[in-house]
């Protein structure tokens, strides 16, 4: 590329639009050309601004609605059948776009980092009410069925009426049937919140969500901790969502499962997101079996932190690489130099929970919400 053509690539630096080849050309030229380097350095504030998704959204909003279509004027005659079909489809889309009300301002939906749900509350099984005919009254005389008013139970229990079994109503004329939904189902014993959150491994009814979600739980399941429709709100627990990103040959990053074997030299990054404000630490196990801090930062709620924030991690020798991600309520300035037994206990606990939850990419603390609350995740990358 000529020097003046290289300068045209500057516009792609701030928006991160450049392909790997374009980046290499531009950066290599900038290393030998002070003027180009200075121009690149002056793009840095814009690049940092546009790395913020919120800022991007605002600029996109300021740009106005997408125009659609190609830059060049259409040359094909409009009478072609496929064009007519396209025009009809476009008209239908336009009608829908006009009819369906749209929000005027883009407001990003809240995302869940993790969600705690409990099984449906147990249903109190009531003994069927037996109504005996009063003495002296003919058995053939119809009698109004009696319904007992529900009793007030504790908060977590839900009162439901049981359908009268045929044997109980055999001597009576037909009683008004209850709604099928009111029929009590066999109730499972209510586990403690901690047990239910940690023991669940499948997104089954009652106990599911980010706490024990699968490796690639849909993002739709992500939001603030909120009262589930059929569960009990436990409060704002500390939760961590982590992802492993591997860079493809075309320069784009893609999420992969942590158990995926990686070729040596594959550029990887960790993506971390906390449910609440806290302090994030990423420790790496060294060859001497101790830990060293790879990354530490105060963490904002529901903000994604990349490790490393610039560049990637690359390993050129086969074998496992182990990381411990720690999210704490309080700062832990000397976390890597902490008691090795304590760190090892955290790793063991994280491994145990990982095993229970298979390939989960979430970790959550279900302890009481206290300043000492923390959550740990153990990540092992296998290079071959």
């Amino acid at each position, binding site marked *: 590329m000529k020097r003046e053509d290289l300068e045209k690539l500057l516009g*792609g630096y701030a928006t991160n639009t450049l392909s790997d080849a374009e980046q290499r050309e531009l950066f290599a030229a900038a290393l030998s050309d002070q003027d180009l*380097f200075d121009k690149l350095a002056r793009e840095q504030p814009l690049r940092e601004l546009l790395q913020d998704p919120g800022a991007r959204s605002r600029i996109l909003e300021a740009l106005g609605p997408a125009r659609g279509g190609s830059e060049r004027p259409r040359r094909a005659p409009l009478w072609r059948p496929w064009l007519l079909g396209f025009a009809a489809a476009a008209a239908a889309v336009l009608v829908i776009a006009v009819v369906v009300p749209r929000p005027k301002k883009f407001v990003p939906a809240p995302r869940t980092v993790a969600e705690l749900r409990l099984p449906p509350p147990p249903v109190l099984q009531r003994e069927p009410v037996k109504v005996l005919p009063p003495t002296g009254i003919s058995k053939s005389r119809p009698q109004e069925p009696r319904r007992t008013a529900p009793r007030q139970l504790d908060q977590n229990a839900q009162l439901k009426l049981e359908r009268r079994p045929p044997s109980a109503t055999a001597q009576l004329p037909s009683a008004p049937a209850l709604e099928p939904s009111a029929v009590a189902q066999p109730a499972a014993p209510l586990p403690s919140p901690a047990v239910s959150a940690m023991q669940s491994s499948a997104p089954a009814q009652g106990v599911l969500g980010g706490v024990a979600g699968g490796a690639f739980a849909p993002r739709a399941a992500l939001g603030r901790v909120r009262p589930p429709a059929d569960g009990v709100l436990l409060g704002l627990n500390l939760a961590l969502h982590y992802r492993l990103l591997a860079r493809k040959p075309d320069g784009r990053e893609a999420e992969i499962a942590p158990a995926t074997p990686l070729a040596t030299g594959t550029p990887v990054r960790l993506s971390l997101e906390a449910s609440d404000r806290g302090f994030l630490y990423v420790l790496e196990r060294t060859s001497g079996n101790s830990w060293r801090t790879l990354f530490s930062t105060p963490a904002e709620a529901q903000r994604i932190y990349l490790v490393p924030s*610039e560049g990637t991690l690359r390993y050129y020798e086969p074998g496992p690489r182990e990381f411990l991600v720690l999210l704490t309520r309080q700062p832990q300035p000397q976390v890597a130099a902490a008691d090795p037994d304590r760190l090892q206990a955290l790793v063991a606990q994280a491994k145990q929970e990982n095993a229970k939850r298979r390939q989960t990419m979430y970790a959550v603390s279900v302890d009481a919400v206290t300043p000492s609350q923390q959550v740990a995740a153990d990540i092992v990358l296998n290079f071959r």
Partner: protein
Amino acid sequence: MGDACGTIRTAPRRIRDVERDEILAKLRERIVAFAASHMTGDAAEDLAQEVLILLHEKYSHVEQLEDLVPLSLQIVRFKIISLRRKAQRRGEYNQVSLADIQVPDLEPGPGVMLERKAMLERLERAVAQLGERCRELIRLKLEGASFSEIQKRMGAASINTIYTWDHRCRKHLLELMGGDWEPEK
């Protein structure tokens, strides 16, 4: 990566080390010259030295040119902002001894956030004044499309056309922003 990678510095690694050292040597030269336009010569030398120390000690795992250049530019910017703040507080430019070098987490502080907010507002006003083609092009870039994808989506004859359009749009946007993305300090 420090200790973790200590065992992997074998033959192929040496070639990478050489390449990395060459890149860092050139970077140092460029950073000194760039910083010299913002501060005194000695301070520029010190700043370049600090950047290189960080790249060597904290970011030793970053090896590729396409990673090293943006990272070093980010650190340079952080350091320049930091030195400016210090000079404003103390009323002088202070050389930072090697023992006092801070390891930046590269997270924006409140002052940077405020500047970013102001910049964002100026940028919003500026992009709204751009022509339709420029707005479309910038939108596609912000949506993550590469130049080749933009070429297809905008129906341009060649990718060079897109480069040229983007260059003109950027120039126009920069003019609307007063010639610099950030206001003069």
